[in-house]
């Protein structure tokens, strides 16, 4: 029971100004959120490692496209295998589509066989708005020095059709590959697509 209450604890945000978007090439705003297990997680604790932020709403058909097909899990696994930290963030407000408690998030991760480093809860939308997260999925990549190197969609096929995954350019894997090779990210900003993040009004 303590766990359930802990997961309902209000998310805390540090240093992320509300409503301000992040700029590619600039330092990404730091934040602290409660994870699905009720622990506090701060972005700055991953300094030195590449971090991927993935905005999530399990009710969104575009998110379902990438989870039901296993594409998101594959991308996560490939990233984790290279030592990349993967944070899935849910900015859905209570009562809105996709909102989950910690226990629900645990069940979601287990059921989808997802392997994020952690699943973070942002029911007040503070971090989501601070990053300018507009859609689910919406991806951000932060390099080891804390600089934002990519923001946008997961790939270049803005549809909900699973069949489009095969022919799409996976922007996340491409960017991570370039980072690993010490090259600059060639496609650093794309238009994210999907459902709108269900923020609190």
């Amino acid at each position, binding site marked *: 029971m303590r766990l359930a209450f802990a997961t309902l604890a209000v998310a805390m945000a540090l240093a992320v100004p509300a409503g301000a978007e992040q700029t590619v090439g600039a330092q990404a705003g730091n934040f602290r959120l409660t994870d699905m297990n009720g622990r506090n997680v701060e972005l700055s604790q991953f300094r030195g490692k590449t971090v991927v932020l993935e905005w999530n709403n*399990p009710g*969104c058909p575009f998110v379902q496209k990438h989870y039901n097909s296993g594409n998101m899990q594959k991308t996560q696994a490939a990233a984790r295998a290279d030592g990349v930290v993967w944070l899935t963030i849910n900015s859905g407000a209570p009562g809105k589509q996709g909102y989950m408690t910690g226990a629900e998030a645990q069940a979601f991760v287990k059921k989808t066989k997802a392997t994020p480093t952690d699943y973070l809860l942002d029911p007040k939308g503070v971090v989501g708005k601070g990053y300018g997260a507009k859609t689910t999925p919406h991806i951000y990549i932060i390099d080891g020095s804390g600089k934002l190197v990519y923001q946008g969609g997961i790939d270049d096929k803005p*549809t*909900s059709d699973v069949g489009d995954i095969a022919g799409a350019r996976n922007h996340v894997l491409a960017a991570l590959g370039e980072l690993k090779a010490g090259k600059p990210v060639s496609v650093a900003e794309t238009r994210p*697509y999907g*459902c*709108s*993040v269900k923020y609190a009004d």
Partner: protein
Amino acid sequence: MRLVSFVLMTLAAWLAIPAIAQTPGQRHIAIDLVAETDRPAAGGEVTLAFVSRPEAGWHGYWKNPGDAGVETEAHWTLPAGVTVGPIQYPVPHRLLIAGLMNYVYEGPFTQFVTLKLPAGLAAGMRLPIGVKLDYLVCTEEICVPESATLATALTVGDGAIPPKRRAEFDGWRRALPKPLGSPASFAIDGGTFRLGVPFPAGAPAKDVYFFPLTDGAIDYAAPQKVSREGDLLVVETKAKAGGPPAVEGVLATGEGQGFSVRATPGAVAAPQQAMAWGAALAAFAGAVLGGLILNVMPCVFPILSLKALSLARSGGEGARGEALAYTAGVVLMCVALGAILLALRAGGATVGWAFQLQDPRVIFVLLLLVTAIAFNLAGLFELSAPGMANRLAASGKGGAFATGALAAFVATPCAGPFMATALAAALVLPWWGALTVFAGLGLGLALPFLAIGFIPALRRRLPKPGPWMETLRRILAVPMFLTALALAWVLGQEAGVSGMTIGLAAAALLAAGLWWTGLRQAKGRALAWLPGTVAVVAALTGVAMITRAPAQAAAEVAGTEPFSETRLAQLRAEGRPVFAYFTADWCLTCKVNEKAVIETAAVRDALAKGKVAVLVGDWTDGDPALGRFIEAHNRAGVPLYLWYGRGGSQPEVLPQVLTQAMLIERAGG
């Protein structure tokens, strides 16, 4: 208990998700595929419409969906050789949900595509058309991607469009954005995106909003500030990082109207609210200079010369006081006139400086006033009769103040040509800036008096008072009479011959009364002012009889008639040359051409002499029938100028920038 409710809630949450998933066959947007004609001609085109009706509470998306969402995609199955254009979208609405901007359709909407048929298809050939539309439909809470598989079968035929179908399509087409014609420009300046769209000052626009098609130019959710300055409509909003080479979008101007806009980088002046102090100061300096020049205008000079001499007469302290009182009178009158002008402008009336002279009743009163002053200067009567003199002497400052106010009031008709620039600036400045300019005008007008009042040396250099002053006074009566004459002429312009007659009769009556007063003054009679006062009151009643003459505007467009294809055909059959032009209230190029070329006397005369019929097609509301006619002449929109010469079967398409010579030459030939 807690545990149970927690489990139940969890279960409910999980159950809710599949519940909103799409049920096959039940879509949230019902779409019909309708062809404008089922029998398109080989080598021709046919427009297809996706007539869409979202379920209550659901919305579909525009081409640029905004912060989230996706664009509609069409996958076509077409017979060989048939090609299809991009989807055309009607003007969208905006829907802001929790800080995210969505560009949507919440009610029925219709998208269009154009099919092109290859030439050489055999008549009667069947053309099966199939399309799978992928689109997103959302409520404020959830989103569902939907697919609709639609089909229709066309038969190669004559391309005739049934009237009922055409009327239906025309109704839907009205929601499409219209091509604005004039190029727009945009500037990005310190995080602010500023779009300047040429849009005539007189064209109505409300709830103006710029829907960008180009992604990454502006922050969709940021509020847009709209201002109109003359013929420029400026939209200001937050820019996104990076500068696109061009920005496309739709400018919505209320009531479902919208214009497609393409803007390239260029200078867009910040709205005047943020106008630099430097410009305001320049306008102020110009106004002071202009006011100074006004002193030598025939309508002002006589009043001022006399005041100057009276100032010279009074020495020292008195002169300063009078100069200040005079200045106060001038400046206050200028500012008051300016304030009224600004209030009228804010109220929507189109007025310029000397607006008070647009009302014939004001002219009438001015005519009487100037007549009285002229007769006074001519010596018909005296304001300095014994009793009066004492009172005026006692109220020297009051008199100076009144003189100043009067001078400013009558100076305005002279102001125009000299003050055009400063006054134009005043009319676009914020109110405080405009009032400063008006005050500057007054200050300039009063400057010589301030100088005489405050610089004794200057006063000393003025000629000594003496009998010559009486002579000068008589001479100065001449420009005053000329001013009266000019006012009578203006009155005639505004109120017609009868209005001018009433004015002159009232002036004559006034003159008679004042003359009688003068006679009594000369004889030193008591109540010398009685006849004059009675005359003033009687003359002023003439105001009630002054009415504005019928507007001349109707005559300006006389000789034109509304465009219709039947009327055009009829005129052509008669063998008359026809000049057909297509215009819209929102088309700046059209308005400029009309004012500078078509509606000028020279062109009107030439057209009348050449017996040229003039047909005007007004496309302000985007009438699709006119639109088709315009399109048939390879133009996407207005302006379009067509010249049908005598005999020639094909019209000549004139350039979008007309010259008077072009029309006069053709009318003469």
